[in-house]
């Protein structure tokens, strides 16, 4: 796995786990890879993966079944989505707003573009797993 320079590795690994949950590769109540297996797959120190898993347990994305390993929480998908949304609103949106202001782009123009983007990339027949909030 290629790691970006601007974020701690343990957070990037946590994001990788969250991606797999959002993509439904790892559905709720499924066991996630052991610390050792994920460390081997990603070529990282097992202690780093341990730290990512502790972080995700604290966020209640995954939970520990005694002696069996870590599992995706029943509402893991919703939790990841909520955390991502909070992060987007706090980090990415202000950045977008700043550019909209500087480049004089109206909210209406963004809305139109967003609609055509959705119809181009996501056909209306395939429902998203959860409706828009």
């Amino acid at each position, binding site marked *: 796995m290629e*790691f970006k*320079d*601007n974020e701690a590795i343990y957070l990037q690994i946590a994001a990788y786990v969250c991606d797999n949950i959002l993509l439904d590769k790892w559905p709720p109540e499924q066991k996630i890879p052991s610390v050792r297996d994920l460390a081997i797959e990603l070529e*990282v*120190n097992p*202690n780093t993966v341990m730290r990512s898993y502790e972080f995700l347990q604290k966020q209640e994305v995954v939970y520990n079944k005694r002696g069996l390993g870590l599992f995706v929480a029943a509402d893991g998908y919703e939790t990841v989505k909520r955390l991502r949304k909070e992060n987007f609103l706090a980090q990415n949106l202000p950045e977008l707003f700043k550019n909209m202001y500087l480049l004089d782009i109206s909210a209406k123009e963004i809305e139109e573009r967003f609609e055509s983007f959705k119809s181009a990339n996501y056909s209306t027949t395939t429902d998203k797993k959860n409706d828009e909030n």
Partner: protein
Amino acid sequence: MIEIKGLCFGYRRKPLLFKDLDLNLSEGHIYGLLGKNGAGKSTLLKNMIGLAYPEKGKVLFNGSNVAGRPVSVLEDVYFLAEELFVPSLTPGQFVTNTGVFYPKFSIADFYQYLKVLDIDPDSVMDKQSFGQQKKTMIAFGLATNTSLLIMDEPTNGLDIPSKVQFRKLIASVLTEDRCIVISTHQVRDLDSLIDTLLILHDREIVVNSTVEEITERITFGVFDNTKNLDVLYEEDGMRGKNAIIKNTNGKFSKIDLELFFNAVTQGNNSLIKILNAAEYE
């Protein structure tokens, strides 16, 4: 696991390489030993396993003095040297002769490691290329299953796919009972594997901290402008200033080992003070 107390060492008719050096290494970690050319990295490693004898001070392995070379130490440590001298034997023959010295040696592991590193077990070792010899000895070293595994520049000579396999192997063999020490200049090969950094500079270990402790205290980043920041060290880079600043927001950045190494070895005292402060804030 390893305790170095007041180590002084110098080669004959040369100034001391280490003066009153103290260092403790514990199991469950992958240590990365960094230092400039000639700082004494290899010499320090040799002192740890009884291949060089301290002038003063001592090195203990689980309480035993390694300079006495007791069997209890030798059978539970493995040192992969940077330069290898291999016999005119195949890996299979070599293992029959030498595996027996290590009680926890696993023949099955050895052949498994040879396979993933793409080494023919029937090739004669002194006819192999340097990279192949290195990989054969890496496989052997890992298969000894010793509590302490020391490797001096293990990625030198490895091709690109072998480096990937090497990282996977190292990730797979670290257990809570094992201590791995890797000395290297190729920090990019190993920066996601090392959890604790040791920097040897000016006859001392100036840094002995986990990556977590380091990034808790200082932040690495690229900035357009560092004028209003509390900069500890900076270098000009392609996208702006690569800088190390105090960590004030509690967020963890990704450590830039090269930048960190340069900062430390250029005698950045304020940086070292922040790292070594017993309690921060």
